[in-house]
């Protein structure tokens, strides 16, 4: 794998992402792994389907990595996001950020996942027992919108 930011329709190996950011300057690596949750507000998910505008999504993931380098100085970021059908507990996204000190790694990794949910063209379709829905439409994202921190909150988290 040549890239540090990539979209793939294959299962993501956590190590493939982490090894991109291991380096002598780093004492801390924070990894965020998003997995498919079975129940959301009591509703059972059977499986998910992720779609991406892959070329643009990879550019935007890379942009997030650049933003992190600007905000936290000596940070190195790698992100992989999967597309296609994902079953319960499958890995949808892996973020790894290495920094000299641990505090920055936590903050930067948190920043990355919040930014993914704002600017990266990837979509999730829920498959429930009683139907399907592309998440992100105005009806169903209400709770998502409420949960999404304002930019200031993310940065100061």
């Amino acid at each position, binding site marked *: 794998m040549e890239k540090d930011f990539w979209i793939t329709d294959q299962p993501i190996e956590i190590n493939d992402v982490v090894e991109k950011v291991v380096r002598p300057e780093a004492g801390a690596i924070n990894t965020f792994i998003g997995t498919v949750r079975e129940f959301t507000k009591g509703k059972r998910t059977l499986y998910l389907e*992720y779609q991406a*505008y892959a070329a643009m999504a990879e550019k935007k993931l890379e942009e997030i990595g650049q933003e992190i380098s600007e905000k936290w100085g000596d940070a190195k970021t790698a992100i992989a996001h999967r597309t296609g059908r994902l079953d319960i507990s499958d890995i949808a996204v892996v973020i790894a950020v290495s920094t000299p000190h641990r505090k920055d790694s936590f903050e930067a990794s948190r920043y990355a996942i919040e930014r*993914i949910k*704002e600017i990266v063209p990837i*979509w999730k379709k829920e498959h429930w027992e009683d139907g399907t829905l592309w998440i*992100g439409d105005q009806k169903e994202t209400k709770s998502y919108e409420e949960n999404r921190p304002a930019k200031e909150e993310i940065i100061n988290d």
Partner: protein
Amino acid sequence: MIDVLFFAELQETVGQEKVSLQVEGITVKDLKTKWLAEYELDNIESAMVAINEEYAEEDAVIASGDVVAFIPPVSGG
């Protein structure tokens, strides 16, 4: 000619991933209100627009060869 890409529920409504149109020099707004009117894309107003993989505004002008993408609210992660 321009290519117009659709994703998620927009793609399902249009019935295809890509539409090619013989047009140029129009704005994003023109594209939505005139050229794509036939698809009756109710949700298109909540979508962001990208031209050649960069987010663009309503009044951006689309040149020949551009790839325009409609980006419904994203839900990755």
